[in-house]
């Protein structure tokens, strides 16, 4: 029977409508010593208004340089069962589809070797197993890998790629997000498991500009599905929407960012050449509007959290690229990017920061992409710029 702690502050967080993480911790605490001590220490954190975790050291499984986050308590004397409390990152499936069979197996393993606490999922997209001891890591890895599962990324490595639900259950997917995500993950296993980059690298793939995976905000490489062609209009469905009370003039035409729509109470028209494919009209009138023509993706690079130079959003590198399996063009492009980053990146410098530091030209030239206006919101202001000898000869 694990030790029980008084948790008056945390108990307050079992009240209220929303499901309580404290209840979850208590459930696990009833079963494992680790979860019990985790709960006890958390109560202490609430009381002290500070974290009681220390910086992690390097722990992991044989042959891998990542996939486990080391974590130690700073008050192990009080909570000995979380003296070690490492996290194991299991590489999730594309778009987080599971079978009950797998989930139950996973629970069995985790109750046996770990705290019984999980995160479904971590922010990057791993199936996060929260809290175990160093000596359990090899067993956990053997249990999972023998069943066909592998660890995700951590450290200066490729991190677990993730994607939106896309073609599996969404009518707007322009690309096969699940397959791209799977294919990238399989292709770059070495880059994921043996950290050798200047810093972390993340892929996120989404089927359209709605971006249900926040790819543009938190992926070094954001792959966003799009199309080249017309938006097909089913005028009967347009009429239906109007009948059901959609104010097409205000809610659709009036909110179109490129002002390329027209509606005269009879027919809706779109000037496709001026559409920026923002997805608003399509999302709000899904039965009436459908992109047609060539499908592919826009590749954007560089988003990340604020350190060191401030938060960034990914920006366009390749406006359009076909995305047919096995995605060789994309993979080759990514390898080129990594080569350049490996060569010039400083320790803890993300690829986007490096591009900002050394300039788009060097990056684009290295990866063999031409400059196009789609890469910028607007051209530069100040007329100071570099010329190469080749430019001058021209």
């Amino acid at each position, binding site marked *: 029977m694990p030790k029980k702690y008084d948790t008056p*502050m945390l108990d307050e967080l079992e*009240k209220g*409508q*929303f499901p*309580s993480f404290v209840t*979850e*911790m208590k459930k*696990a605490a009833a079963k494992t010593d680790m979860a019990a001590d985790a709960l006890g220490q958390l109560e202490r954190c*609430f009381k002290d208004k*500070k974290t009681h975790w*220390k*910086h992690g050291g390097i722990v992991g499984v044989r042959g*891998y340089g990542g996939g486990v986050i080391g974590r130690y308590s700073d008050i192990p004397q009080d909570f000995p069962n979380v003296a070690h409390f490492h*996290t194991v990152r299991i*590489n999730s*499936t594309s778009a*987080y589809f599971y079978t*009950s*069979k797998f989930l139950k197996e996973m629970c069995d393993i*985790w*109750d046996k070797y770990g705290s*019984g606490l*999980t*995160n*479904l999922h971590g922010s990057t997209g791993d199936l996060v197993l*929260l809290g175990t001891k160093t000596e359990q890591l090899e*067993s956990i890895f053997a249990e999972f890998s*023998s069943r*066909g599962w*592998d660890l995700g990324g951590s450290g200066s490595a490729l991190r677990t790629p*993730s994607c939106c*639900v896309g*073609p*599996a*259950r969404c009518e707007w*997917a322009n690309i096969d997000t*699940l397959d791209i995500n799977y294919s990238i*993950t399989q292709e770059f*296993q070495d880059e994921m*498991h043996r950290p050798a980059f200047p810093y972390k690298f993340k892929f996120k793939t989404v089927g359209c500009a709605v971006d*249900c*995976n*926040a790819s*543009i*905000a*938190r992926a070094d490489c954001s792959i966003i599905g799009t199309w080249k062609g017309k938006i097909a209009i089913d005028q009967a469905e347009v009429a239906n929407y109007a009948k059901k009370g959609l104010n097409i003039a205000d809610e659709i035409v009036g*909110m*179109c*960012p490129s002002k390329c729509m027209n509606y005269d109470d009879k027919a809706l028209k779109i000037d496709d050449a001026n559409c920026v494919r*923002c*997805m*608003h009209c399509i*999302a709000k009138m899904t039965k009436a509007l459908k992109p047609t023509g060539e499908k592919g993706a826009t590749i954007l690079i560089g988003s990340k*959290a604020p*350190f*060191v*130079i*401030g*938060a960034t959003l990914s920006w366009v590198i390749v406006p359009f690229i076909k995305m047919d399996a096995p995605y060789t063009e994309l993979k080759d492009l990514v390898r080129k990017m990594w080569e350049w980053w490996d060569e010039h990146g400083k320790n*803890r410098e993300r690829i986007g920061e490096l591009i900002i530091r050394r300039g788009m030209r060097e990056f684009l030239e290295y990866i063999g992409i031409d400059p196009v206006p789609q890469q910028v919101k607007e051209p530069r202001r100040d007329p100071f710029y570099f010329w190469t000898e080749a430019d001058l000869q021209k």
Partner: protein
Amino acid sequence: MAAPQRRTDIGPPHYKDFLPPVIQKNYGSWKYHEVISGGTMVHVSNSGDKIWTVRVASPRLLSTDTIRDMADIAEKYCGGYIRFTTRNNAEFLVSDEKNIEPLQKELKQKGYLSGGIGSRISNIVHTQGWVHCHSAATDASGLVKVIMDDLADYFTTKETPNKVRIAVACCTNMCGAVHCSDIALVGIHRKVPRIDHDSIKNTCEVPSTISACPTGAISPDPAKKSLKINDDKCMYCGNCYSVCPSLPISDPVNDGVAIVVGGKVGSLRSNPKFSKLAVPYIPNNPPRWPEVTTIVRKILDTYIAGAKKHERVGEWIERIGWEKFFELTGLPFTFQHIDDFTIARETFRTASTFKW
């Protein structure tokens, strides 16, 4: 039980093995969807096949007991198929219409909270907080719980002008999408890191610690074989502590929470936007952070009252202007709101066009 045979570099299993048959059949061929209620929607394929999704909230931090229970429910109504969303909700995938009602009933009876679909508040993307991270300036799960308790009606039934994406990160490393969320909370420090001169030589790499500082506040202290911090330049971001354990920065009295608002990631109507500072600091007041929930509620109410249909928080604010945002919410505008970081001058008002 003998240890099973380990394998390496196999990657995750193929996703096809986890897709319900109706999805396998209609993969890439969905025609449209309809939102049936706050927690249920149906997708219809070109073949006429349908799949219903019943979404329930999850605290994300799940015990194996709860996962097993979800798996049981999935077996009962969904052929064992279940998925999780990019915002950590669980989705029961139903192929047979007649299973929906019993599923919803069982979920309700077991205390699951169904919702998050459509123009509503969905789950809060968040991070480890005091549950697991050494870097946390506040707790994450606790904040999520108190905010979602307060706003639960907007998860289940009530509508907002458009989706409202809330995020929480426990420090400025921002392991969530805080920097591009409609409303987000982030743990911050307000004191210069303390320097543990004794341990520094063994635990820290000096050059990377120096270059971790966004403001160049750190320099070598050769005499002490340690580091120096220029107090005037330090803005308490904590990045030095991320790379050097000997520079602890957490401070129970001065740590707390900042609120940023108006970000988004989708491109609908307007381009992806960064969140911007609304409230520079609220003290940590666990377990229920009442000041935080009050202000979040105030911001949300003001948005709901003022926004046009389909406007996200950031779109609404940009339409009315930030000066009106501060006026309408009653939040004070302080020196902290004025940028002094890398792109500060791009945020200055280079026009005399503003509202009084």
